[in-house]
């Protein structure tokens, strides 16, 4: 056994989120699943002994049997002390009292494992969400601890990177390391995970091999559906002519492209420039060339007016919040709402999304998935013509994904909104999106598949 938890009860406020938990985690690859807000991140932070030191109250015991652990947070960007990946790795290795002579070896292992050679000396702030996750993993690899605690480590990774990293982690597990990982996407774990634990009623149960098989079969069904997209026609909403967007390096060089209404899925590898495209469209960063919205140059539009028509649902949910509690946030969005969202409609959706009982909670203390659901609801209540949606499904369980997509679909039907959606979860979004744009080699291109 590497982790032994006995009679653990943990609570943030009055109600415990984990109750009487007894759990043994052996060496190998352990996957932790469960709906959003069930306590996966909390459990990982308890094992990392960050909780109850930094939040909450706990009774019971957690024993790591003298093994060293390190954790990767759900929101990778929040975990770095230093400015660049190399400095962060040095910082971590100095903490572990690694000598300068051994440093190079640790560093090399880390960047080879995660393929971040070319990112080592870039500012972490300027890296994309998926790249930040890889860097966070690299730090843990460099530290070479016994127990890796990974909280949705691939939520923003593109499918190739994800597959690559999972295979590598599996090799680590075979060499005697303990990997404890939480995830909502179950792809590629079937052959790899040795143990599968599921959160149920404030405690955790290990699934038997038949239950495991059933779960993975369900997941497989999702991907067996065939899907296709059509090429867009009609009146374009955005027009790009000789547009160039740069952040550190040139990301987009588009001679000519029109973006159309309805829902468009945008996919592409990590760091290719998807979020930067949205930033240029919301005037957060500059672009070169002509980029028009309804025949008007975006550069010249007043942000105050333009952003009430074209808005973004950010990758990081907490960036969207402006007040303190869920109730306050709802009140703010209601001020400017569209006709579809009556009070009854909002209450109905709060219940469906499981947020009704959190009305008085501070938004930042909601779980990652709950924040995401609230964020999407808030932005749909405000009536925009165009919504730029950056990874709406990351951190959401299958049930929540279905709900969020239904909500977006209903809303779009009523209001004829245009959605541009960045996501790596093509299978889930294929039903919902009409068009598919692929971002690669500094170009955006419509495809039918």
């Amino acid at each position, binding site marked *: 056994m590497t982790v032994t938890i006995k009679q653990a009860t943990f609570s943030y406020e009055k109600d415990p989120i984990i109750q009487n938990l007894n759990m043994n985690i052996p060496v190998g690859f352990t996957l932790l699943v469960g709906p959003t807000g069930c306590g996966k991140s909390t459990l990982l932070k308890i094992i990392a002994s960050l909780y109850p030191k930094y939040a909450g109250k706990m009774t019971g015991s957690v024993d790591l049997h003298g093994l060293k652990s390190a954790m990767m947070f759900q929101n990778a960007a*929040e975990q770095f*002390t230093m*400015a660049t990946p190399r400095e962060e790795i040095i910082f971590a290795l100095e903490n572990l009292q690694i000598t300068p002579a051994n440093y190079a070896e640790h560093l090399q292992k880390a960047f080879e494992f995660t393929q971040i050679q070319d990112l080592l000396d870039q500012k972490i702030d300027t890296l994309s969400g998926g790249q930040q996750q890889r860097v966070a993993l690299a730090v843990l690899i460099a530290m070479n601890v016994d127990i890796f605690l990974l909280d949705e480590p691939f939520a923003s990774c593109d499918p190739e990177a994800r597959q690559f990293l999972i295979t590598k982690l599996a090799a680590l597990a075979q060499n005697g390391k303990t990997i404890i990982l939480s995830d909502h996407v179950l792809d590629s774990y079937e052959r790899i995970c040795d143990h599968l634990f599921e959160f149920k009623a404030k405690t955790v149960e290990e699934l038997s091999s038949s239950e495991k098989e059933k779960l993975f079969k369900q997941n497989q069904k999702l991907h067996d559906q065939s899907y296709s997209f059509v090429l867009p026609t009609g009146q374009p909403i955005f027009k790009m002519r000789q547009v160039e967007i740069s952040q550190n390096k040139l990301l987009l060089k588009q001679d000519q492209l029109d973006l159309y209404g309805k829902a468009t899925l945008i996919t592409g590898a990590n760091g290719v420039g998807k979020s930067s495209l949205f930033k240029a469209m919301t005037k957060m960063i500059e672009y070169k060339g002509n980029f028009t919205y309804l025949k008007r140059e975006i550069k010249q539009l007043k942000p105050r007016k333009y*952003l009430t028509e074209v808005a973004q649902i950010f990758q990081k949910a907490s960036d969207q919040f*402006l007040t303190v509690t869920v109730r306050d946030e709802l009140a703010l969005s209601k001020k*400017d709402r569209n006709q579809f969202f009556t009070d009854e409609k909002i209450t109905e959706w709060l219940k469906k999304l499981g947020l009704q009982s959190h009305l008085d909670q501070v938004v*930042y203390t909601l779980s990652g998935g709950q924040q995401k659901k609230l964020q999407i609801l808030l932005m749909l209540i405000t009536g925009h013509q165009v919504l730029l949606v950056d990874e709406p499904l990351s951190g959401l369980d299958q049930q929540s994904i279905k709900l969020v997509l239904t909500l977006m679909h209903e809303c779009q039907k009523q209001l004829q909104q245009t959605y541009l959606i960045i996501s790596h979860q093509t299978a889930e979004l294929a039903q919902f999106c009409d068009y598919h744009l692929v971002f690669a080699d500094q170009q955006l291109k419509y495809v039918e598949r």
Partner: protein
Amino acid sequence: MNPSLKFILAFIISLEISLKASLTTNLIVIAFALVYLLITKIKTKELILLIALPFIAAFTIFATLYWFSPTPDPYYAWNLSTRVYVYTLTITCVTRNTTATDFSRSLEQNLHLPSKFAYGVLAAINIVPKMQMAVKQIRTSAMMRGMYLSFWSPVLYFKAILVALNSADNLAQGMESHGYVEGQKRSTIVAIPLTWKDWTIFFVLLILVNISLFLFR
């Protein structure tokens, strides 16, 4: 030059100049700092800003003491207004070619300050560009929800403080999750050298400033 030593030197010079009036020394320090900045190839735009911005403060002090004082004293007016430039230019020399990371490493290694303090300083320096970005982000996201936040809006700063508090808490957890334990010994992978050359420059400059302070008015 070693970052900590550079900082201590600038600190001592600023302190001494505050206590003993000597216009000549002020001008010598200013000239020396400007030459140093030019040698280290400071950008013209930065240099112009560096001279233009403190000018407002320097001019106000000069005007108060020279034109609006009942007993105008030109020497005193010049002396106090040039001090503004001594402070800003010496501090610029300290930050020139020294990254925040090097500075905090130097505090930890050369001055043997607790690592908690050194990384606290680093976090404080690093948070400035982050806050600038956060303010821009907050204003954009407010406009997206039909709320216009001007630069003096309390909501803007309330949210900015929340962001800062949140990131401070995350930073503490982030450091610990990467193996940091308060008070525990750490190894040194990137050493910040403190050589006899650093010490020589330090004492030579300090002695020269002191000679000038006591010889010239």
